[in-house]
């Protein structure tokens, strides 16, 4: 592994950490808007440490959802990381229970992307660890900033924050809908179905359950036969 390649990996890792830090501020603010205190928001970033699940949890709470609906949404999104882990095993080759348990905490979108993109196995390991450290530090620091910042807001600023939260979710969703993402047309259909089902069910069922219902309904109805997407 050359020094240049190693430097490039470290630079990318820090860049990713900074980019993710922006989302950390948004997450801290969304958590505060949903009624979590700064300790709870930080505990989520330190212990759950998987952005989409954290956003989903506070999103469901913010919409008045039950704790079960919030946990269910977070876990559904967390299944992604299980698949990432399978891809990472041959690259990281964790030895023993401790190494496995420690590596697992940093198995997220960004670390997997860096490890999988690395040209050789040792660089994959460096990429995983450097990205994990960089994202972990900045994600937690900026969560605190967002959570504390939003607590100091007045009424107009609160209205601004209320508008920022759905926009942040839309920004997370957006890349999945663009051409270039695998099966983007199906993704758009599923997203549209999820939104419509959630809105239709909102006045009928207990708050928050609509989010789960939307997922179940779309997961059952939306995905097409495999051939269609493969064509």
């Amino acid at each position, binding site marked *: 592994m050359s020094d240049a390649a190693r430097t490039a990996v470290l630079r990318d890792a820090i860049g990713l950490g900074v980019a993710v830090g922006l989302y950390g501020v*948004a997450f801290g603010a969304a958590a505060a808007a949903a*009624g979590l205190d700064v300790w*709870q928001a930080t*505990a*989520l970033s330190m*212990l759950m*440490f*998987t952005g989409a*699940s954290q956003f989903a949890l506070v*999103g469901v709470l*913010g*919409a*008045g959802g039950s*704790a079960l609906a*919030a*946990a269910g949404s977070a*876990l559904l*999104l967390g*299944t*992604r990381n*299980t*698949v990432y*882990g*399978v891809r*990472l*095993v041959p690259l990281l080759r964790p030895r023993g229970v401790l190494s*496995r348990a420690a590596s*697992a*905490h940093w198995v997220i979108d960004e670390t997997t992307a860096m490890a999988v993109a690395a040209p050789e196995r040792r660089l994959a390991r460096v990429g995983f660890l450097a990205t994990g450290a960089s994202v972990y530090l900045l994600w937690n620091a900026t969560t605190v900033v967002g959570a504390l910042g939003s607590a100091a807001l007045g*009424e*107009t*600023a609160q*209205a*601004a*924050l*209320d*508008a*920022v939260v*759905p*926009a942040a*979710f*839309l*920004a997370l*969703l957006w890349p999945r809908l663009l051409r270039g993402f695998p099966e983007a047309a199906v993704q*758009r259909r*599923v*997203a*549209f*179905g*999820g939104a419509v089902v*959630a*809105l239709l069910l*909102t*006045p009928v069922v207990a*708050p928050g359950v609509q*989010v789960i219902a939307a*997922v179940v309904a*779309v997961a059952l109805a*939306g*995905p097409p036969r495999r051939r269609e997407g493969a064509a």
Partner: protein
Amino acid sequence: MSDGTLWTLVLGASLGCYLLKLAGLSVPARWVEQPWVARVVDFVPAALLAALVAVQAGTADGELVVDGRLAGLAVAALALALRAPFIVVLVLAGGTGALVHVLA
């Protein structure tokens, strides 16, 4: 929701998410590489995120509501379509929400 319930949720869901990560590093690959697992992983995020966008922007207390959040969402969608960076999207959405609040 009580503070105790919130803490239980925070810690319990965090543990669950950690175990999902650990499972990927621990179980045989063929257990995870099932077609239905792939479907869930590929498509649940789109449905869930879209449902959250809709509920966060268009409802309050179990009813459909139109207010500054929807205006902010429309501006955010426009900004995303024009490939604005994340922070710009959020600032524009927040500014729109605040403006509607002041005018309404």
